[in-house]
């Protein structure tokens, strides 16, 4: 395919994807003195062009015409619930909203910025220690990450300082220092910024959760609570709770993004080059397939171009990374019949349901006020913070009020309480009452990996460049449904303590298949996971391909299970972790970092 491609002068490092992972890796590689080219499929973006007030805060364009999101007309995926079905194209945005353009999902995200719970990193080991190997359901590919919290801690800390993350710690260096999450591990330092103020609904939730006996804490938010200058010299302004985070470039320079926190510095670096509107077709391998020689892409003018490089870093969105590996022949594709092969294995999602609580009609909940990462959560039913023994499921959910700013079209779509018509006068009255006097509580849960849930290439449908679409085979499983239903019941306890006028608890239903038509979350994961066993992971614990040592693959694709937390904090920490080992070991001695 690349015989007629124009061949450019070699560079040291070529990076595919200009989001958080790609920007972090580019920063690290230029600091190491390497020449870097970042290839981004979408357009160049920045605050001035995409986040200028007031034109940018247009809900129709932002959340309903998907201004910052992937152009599905050119690239999408196919989806089915099981391998007996014909997977069909995801033609219209709904269940998940991948980004496109410089900044990637890091431009349109909300800002919830977590460190993964230590037990989640070694979940298989932990479950077997606590409950025995028989506790793991048949068909669940439960795995460890191969890296510990202690190893990652310096990189969580670094990412928080780059992002300007606001939060309240619980323990710093083993000492209890604040009212943070009592289940969170010790930190080496405080958050760089104090927690955001609670919006009213979060304040009510905090009070009620305490009354119900839980342990509420402020969500860690990459929405600056004060003016901030990060270690790179990039500047952030204080968040004004405008309510336009998710789906928007922040006009206040308050929400962390690659565009605000890294690229302003990187763009000035002489070793850095960004090429937007360049769609990578494949990673080129040498004749024995053991070493990458560069990548081939289609540039903005439609030319096919090969960029030779010593090191190839895939840092596109989770499923694009997996697809590029499959298209390039990096790693053995997963075979669900034999549970063998690694690329496409352990495709995971996140198991989120949102419940609604109606308060006294005199109480104005002001749902348009919000910060994307702000809110109050409790972790009493997340990770291994509770005894799963009598419950008989693996996994858990943090529970939270994360009021990111509910806007008018979204309110109209949400409508009134269950049973209210979807249009006409009854809808109007119910919708207005709900918007003004209700609040939303999420159970933001894990999704385990299963043998028959996976990614591969679709046999029928193609993208704009004639390459096969990625095929998702995914459905909800009983273990995860039981987990969701158990945790959602706890939301009922909180609602009661709030003095709710009416409560609608949304639980996942047994036998109801994954529905691509309804927004769930964009927190897709797995498919090219990290680990210590090349038989069950595509990447070693440094996110290096087991098979092609000069290819590193950075992203939520590395997660063996879907976590209860938002993925970005973990992706950023993994990027710094991988970069550290590339800089300290790989560049001097190129070769496998794990044997």
């Amino acid at each position, binding site marked *: 395919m690349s015989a007629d491609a124009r061949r450019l002068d070699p560079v040291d490092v070529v990076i595919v994807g200009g989001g958080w992972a790609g920007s972090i890796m580019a920063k690290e590689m230029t600091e190491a003195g390497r020449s870097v080219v970042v290839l981004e499929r979408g357009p160049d973006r920045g605050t001035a062009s995409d986040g200028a007030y007031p034109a940018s805060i247009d809900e129709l364009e932002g959340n309903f015409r998907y201004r910052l999101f992937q152009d599905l007309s050119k690239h999408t995926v196919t989806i089915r619930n099981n391998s007996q079905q014909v997977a069909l194209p995801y033609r219209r945005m709904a269940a998940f909203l991948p980004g496109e353009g410089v900044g990637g999902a890091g431009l349109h995200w909300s800002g919830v910025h977590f460190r993964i719970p230590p037990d989640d990193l070694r979940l298989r080991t932990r479950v077997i220690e606590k409950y025995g190997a028989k506790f793991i359901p048949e068909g669940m590919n439960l795995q460890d990450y191969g890296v510990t919290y202690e190893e990652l801690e310096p990189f969580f800390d670094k990412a928080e300082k780059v992002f300007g993350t606001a939060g309240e710690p619980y323990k710093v260096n083993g000492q209890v220092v604040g009212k943070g999450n009592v289940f969170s591990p010790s930190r080496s330092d405080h958050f760089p910024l104090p927690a955001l103020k609670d919006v009213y609904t979060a304040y009510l939730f905090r009070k009620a959760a305490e009354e119900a006996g839980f342990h509420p804490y402020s969500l860690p938010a990459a929405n600056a609570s004060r003016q901030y200058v990060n270690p790179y010299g990039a500047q952030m302004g204080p968040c004004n709770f*405008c309510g336009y985070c998710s789906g928007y470039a922040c006009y206040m320079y308050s929400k962390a993004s690659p565009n605000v926190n890294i690229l302003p510095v990187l763009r000035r670096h002489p070793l850095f080059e960004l090429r937007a509107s360049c769609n990578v077709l494949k990673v080129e391998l040498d004749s024995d397939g053991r070493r990458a020689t560069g990548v081939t892409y289609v540039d903005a003018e439609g030319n096919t171009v090969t960029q030779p490089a010593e090191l190839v870093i895939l840092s596109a969105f989770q499923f694009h990374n997996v697809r590029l590996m499959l298209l390039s022949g990096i790693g053995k594709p997963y075979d669900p019949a034999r549970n063998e092969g690694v690329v496409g294995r352990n495709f995971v999602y996140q198991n989120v349901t949102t419940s609604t609580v109606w308060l006294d009609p005199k109480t104005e909940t002001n749902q348009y006020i919000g910060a994307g990462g702000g809110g109050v959560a409790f972790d009493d039913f997340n990770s291994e913070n509770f005894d799963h023994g009598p419950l008989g499921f693996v996994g858990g959910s943090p529970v939270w009020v994360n009021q990111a700013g509910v806007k008018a079209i979204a309110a109209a779509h949400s409508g009134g309480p269950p049973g209210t018509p979807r249009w006409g006068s009854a809808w109007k009255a119910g919708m207005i009452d709900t918007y*003004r006097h209700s609040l939303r509580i999420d159970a933001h849960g894990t999704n385990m990996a299963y043998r028959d849930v996976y990614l591969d290439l679709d046999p029928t449908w193609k993208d704009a460049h004639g390459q096969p679409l990625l095929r998702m085979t995914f459905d909800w499983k009983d273990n995860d449904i039981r987990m969701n239903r158990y945790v959602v019941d706890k939301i009922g306890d909180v609602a009661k303590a709030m003095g709710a006028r009416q409560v609608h608890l949304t639980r996942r239903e047994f036998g109801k298949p994954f529905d691509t*038509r309804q927004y769930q979350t964009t927190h897709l994961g797995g498919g090219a996971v990290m680990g210590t066993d090349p038989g069950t992971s595509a990447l070693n614990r440094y996110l290096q391909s087991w098979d092609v040592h000069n290819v590193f693959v950075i992203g939520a694709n590395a997660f063996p299970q879907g976590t209860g937390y938002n993925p970005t904090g973990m992706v950023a920490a993994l990027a710094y972790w991988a970069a550290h080992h590339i800089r300290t070991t790989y560049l001097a001695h190129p070769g496998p970092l794990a044997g």
Partner: protein
Amino acid sequence: MGIGGLRFTSSRRQFILGLAGAVACGTALTPSGRAAAAPYRPQFFNAAEWAFLVAACDRLIPADASGPGAVALDVPRFIDRQMDTPYARGEQWYMSGPFVQGAANLGYQLPYAPRDLYRHGIAGMNAHAATRHGQPFASLAPTVQDGLLQAAEKGSLAFGDIPSVVFFEQLLANVMEGAFSDPIHGGNTGMGGWTMLGFPGARADFMDWVDQYGAHYPLGSVSISGERA
């Protein structure tokens, strides 16, 4: 609530005004019901389609005690303008074949862009109205119109290979957008949708309001172009 005698009369009056405007090639209404200076001429919809659109909008969001209806908010104008966007031409959707129908939960699989759905859907609704009731949709009594819309919503009609629920969902989604998006797009006239809901629009600065718990926000809506409600 909302279909009491007085409110019904009010809704019906606006509906008739809207329809009359349509027949005369468009009269935009302000929230107070005054005819605006420049009558709106639909660019995409023909007279029969426009009459359907105005009538259907009036049923989906009727004027009532809660606030203005879709016709006063110029939702038909919004939808007509949307028809001239990449979205309505299907340019934001993956529209490569083959088009294979499957389980509903696997999502939309028809080869039609929103413009096509409106063309076929409105023709289908009007044909159905004519067969069942001898008149186009816009000429029927509101309760009969509601019955047809409910049938479309339940998916009990089909317009060729387009299930009625597909057309209904397209229409309802665009009606919501028109009533509650920034007026820059042609709907939500006078920010009447936002005012009814209590949404401040482009104010987008709650630095000094975030911890004033439970209190009513005192400032009216503003739009992107600087209008104040």
